[in-house]
């Protein structure tokens, strides 16, 4: 394993920032840290980079204990949400700076900076100062600096968060290409489930300083091990309902509604469950064999041109339906939606996935 965390935890004052954690990452892997603001993404990165020291446990790099090794002695690169460049240096010197530190020969520096600049489309701007660049170009400069040397670990902490939406889209396509074929372990922190899905690879979900799941991205999205992971990995927020299963029927808590049980969930013992339904599995039209109808008062409809997102109220709880096409519901009207029970996630009362 390239990087291993053994029983690592971090406490600051009386507060636990990272709970007891065991993790292992392979060389050449692209790992996404997904979680809300303050869920522990940055702390975890800083522990792995050596910027913060763990309160307990050890960190191993290629079989060597590096827990007490300072960040300067480790071969790491970091890119932050805020664009950080040396304002007095040219773009060329900004990108070259980590190579100058290690005393690389000038010719080699020229080759490497030239290549990094080309990949990040900065070649025409190498003689400019960062202040003469747009936000996107400044962040590309910071990214170029992170890839110019052969770092063992590359940390990208919400690097696209301060950029324009469309620019983010472009860089999301380019970033994975930059790292493919490299030996480095790459870590990428984001608050956005959609971004994690676009990158694919592996995702680690975090909630309040705990790692709730780590595995193949699409797999976690479709089969979150817990209600917490499901909530971290759903945008718009996942719909959650308490149900009682008896035989082939589900009764919704606090209502007279009964829904059919899907074939997959039929094997579950009777009793109480929480079910999770992604918003695109609650739609204006019937789509599944096991179809659950639910009616509510429409709070608001958001139409993006290709999709409609309807927020509606059922017994004091907000439900969200996301569907293809234009469905212009009026605020306040009562509308009926269809829950696709075939795609419902069943969690036991402790929040663990059971089907």
């Amino acid at each position, binding site marked *: 394993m390239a990087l291993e965390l053994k029983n690592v935890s971090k406490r600051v004052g009386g507060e636990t920032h990272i709970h007891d954690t065991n993790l292992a990452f392979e060389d050449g892997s692209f790992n996404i840290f997904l979680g*809300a*603001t303050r869920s522990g993404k940055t702390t975890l990165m800083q522990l792995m980079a050596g910027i913060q020291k763990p309160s307990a446990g050890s960190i191993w790099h290629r079989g060597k204990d590096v827990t007490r090794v300072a960040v300067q002695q480790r071969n790491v690169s970091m890119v932050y949400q805020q664009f950080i460049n040396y304002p007095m240096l040219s773009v060329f010197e900004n990108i070259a700076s980590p190579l100058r530190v290690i005393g690389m020969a000038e010719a080699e520096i020229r080759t490497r900076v030239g290549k990094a600049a080309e990949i990040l489309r900065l070649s025409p701007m190498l003689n400019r100062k960062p202040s003469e660049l*747009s*936000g*996107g170009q400044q962040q590309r400069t910071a990214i170029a600096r992170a890839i110019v040397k052969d770092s063992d670990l590359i940390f990208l902490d919400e690097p696209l968060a301060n950029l*324009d*939406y*469309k*620019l983010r*889209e472009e860089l999301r396509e380019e970033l994975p290409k930059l790292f493919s074929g490299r030996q480095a372990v790459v870590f990428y922190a984001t*608050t*956005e*489930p*959609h971004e994690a*899905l*676009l990158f*694919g690879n592996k995702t680690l979900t975090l909630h309040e300083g705990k790692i709730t799941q780590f595995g193949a991205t*699409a797999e976690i*999205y479709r089969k979150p091990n817990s209600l917490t992971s499901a*909530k971290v990995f*759903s*945008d*718009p*927020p996942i719909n959650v309902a308490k149900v009682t299963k008896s035989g082939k029927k589900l009764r919704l808590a606090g209502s007279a509604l009964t829904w059919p049980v899907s074939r997959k969930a039929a094997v579950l013992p009777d009793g109480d469950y929480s079910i999770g339904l*992604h918003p*695109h599995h609650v739609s204006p039209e019937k789509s599944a064999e096991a179809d659950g109808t639910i009616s509510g008062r429409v*709070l*608001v409809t*958001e*139409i*993006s*041109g*290709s999709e409609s*997102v309807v*927020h509606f109220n059922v017994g004091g709880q907000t439900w*969200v339906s*996301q569907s*293809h096409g*234009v469905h212009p519901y009026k*605020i306040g009207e009562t509308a009926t939606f269809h829950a696709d029970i075939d795609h419902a996630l069943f969690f036991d009362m402790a929040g663990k996935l059971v089907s």
Partner: protein
Amino acid sequence: MAKITIDNLRHSYMSLATRDEDFALKRVHLDWADGGAYALLGPSGCGKTTLLNLISGLLHPSEGRILFDDRDVSNDTPEKRNIAQVFQFPVIYDTMTVYDNLAFPLRNRGVDEAEIKKRVTDIAEMLELTSTLDKRAAGLTADGKQKISLGRGLVRSDVNVIMFDEPLTVIDPHLKWQLRSKLKELQHRIKRTMIYVTHDQTEALTFADQVVVMNNGEVVQTGTPIELFEKPKHTFVGHFIGSPGMNVLPCEVKGGKAFVEGHAVAADNVKSVSGGKLELGVRPEFVSFAKSGLPVDVVKVSDVGRYRVVDTRLGQLSVKLIVKEGDDIPSGKTHVAFDKSHTQIYSDNWLAGSAR
């Protein structure tokens, strides 16, 4: 509340502007109805913030006028224009309670306490802030603070317009959904004229009834979210709206037919083409796999949950399509077809045959 007219507005930050490119905002006309929800959408540097600052009076236009209910306000100070503004970062008084923060704009204008109480209570309830009214604002989370900023923008009933400048940029995605739908709900309830500035297409399209898309200091299209999605007037709109954006493919038109990489493609407006640089535009939502049609190679599939984005190569060109969760995706060589009613030809980037 007021109807807003932007009449032949032009603005340059230079003292001696002559050429078109000297202008950060190149001649804009807009009519906004009283009580409407509008969005200004575009990338950094497109002129949307310049336009906002001209409306609020922070900038004075080089040319043209701004009218509120047909009254020229171009020379009025920001105070006199009577506008509420909400910014990207929460602007609140940490040491005051939530109640006092919300009451602040009203107290400033000498509204009596009984009326203040009524308005603050109403707004707090709509924004689900009632339980925090007695708490100090300092203890709230980022989204809680931004809710107060929104509340302060909404609490006055006498403003001509409420302007939002990227109000949700610093908010986490799951809270963004909540705040955005709350704001939209409020807009419908209180019927104030609202202008929402953003670079985020989702926010613009879901908030506004009419979206003004800007690029390089120009308005490229104004329309409903559906119009912008189904009939982009400019390739920029096609690219900027939609995720991924519209496929824009160089094409030729010969004998009343369009050809892409030598293959004939049916397009809705092919008869309106008269010349210029020709491109064919079709959104990934209107491309599907087919038994016959355009020969492509599947090169990449990105699974984004409810659908997958498939990247294919048609000769030298990249063609993207969107495939629903659960539908099959062929591998290697296959064919795609374009939905004719949503396939359009663009001439020098503008939709062929449409009035500019």
